[in-house]
């Protein structure tokens, strides 16, 4: 089981495109990438979950950890997600109140620049 991670710069944002399943086995790879971005000075991060087939509580924990890291630098972490099966995980756990969730990368970068 592989997790695909592709990072691109969009304006002042680091956009992380995630593909595959985020679970207890693959979440450490995502955590390392997000830590690396922050340590390199990327404090405005967008995580694109449109290519994610599965997300569990360990994946949520990684995203919460990354949010805390960017907030420590007055940064932002936004998500892109339109899939009902992934959105329901955020709704059940109450994290829709914690993460700004957008329907496209453009929306996410525009909103967090305002």
């Amino acid at each position, binding site marked *: *089981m592989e997790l695909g991670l592709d990072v691109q710069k969009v304006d002042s944002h680091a956009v992380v495109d995630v593909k595959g399943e985020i*679970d207890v086995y693959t979440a450490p790879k995502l955590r390392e990438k997000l830590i690396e971005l922050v340590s390199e000075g990327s404090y405005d991060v967008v995580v694109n979950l449109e290519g994610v087939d*599965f997300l569990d*509580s360990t994946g949520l924990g990684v995203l919460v950890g990354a949010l805390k890291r960017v907030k420590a630098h007055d940064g932002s972490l936004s998500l892109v997600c339109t899939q009902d099966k992934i959105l329901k*995980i955020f709704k059940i756990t109450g994290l829709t109140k*914690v993460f700004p969730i957008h329907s496209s990368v453009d929306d996410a970068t525009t909103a967090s620049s305002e």
Partner: protein
Amino acid sequence: MTGVDIAIPPRSVYVGVVRLAVAALARQAGLDEDEVDNLRIAVSEACTTVVLAQEGDGNDDPVTVRWDDTEDEVSVEIEGASPPAVAPADVDDSQGFSSRDVLSQALLESLVDESSFDDRDGGRVTRLVIRRH
């Protein structure tokens, strides 16, 4: 009634194998796609909790997953080591974010019709049920 037993080594890489098996069994049992997805998430959460507990303790006993399918319900029992108790102070961190255990518990309670935990002799059996409508 159809019964299927699966045993995996307590390693995180095998949790995905259980998800695949449970999704296939759930489709075979006639659950709809929402129920299939909910059950595979819940089973994955329960397996993850056990695997993390056993990896932390260096416990190499297999994690067992028992599938049962009856006219009235589909049930899955996940058996392995008990996770360490979560102290009330560890439920939320200093910034008010819930721990992985709390997030996982919320998912288990919401995604299936019934979830129960039986802790005894250092082990835990988590039972997850989806009732047929």
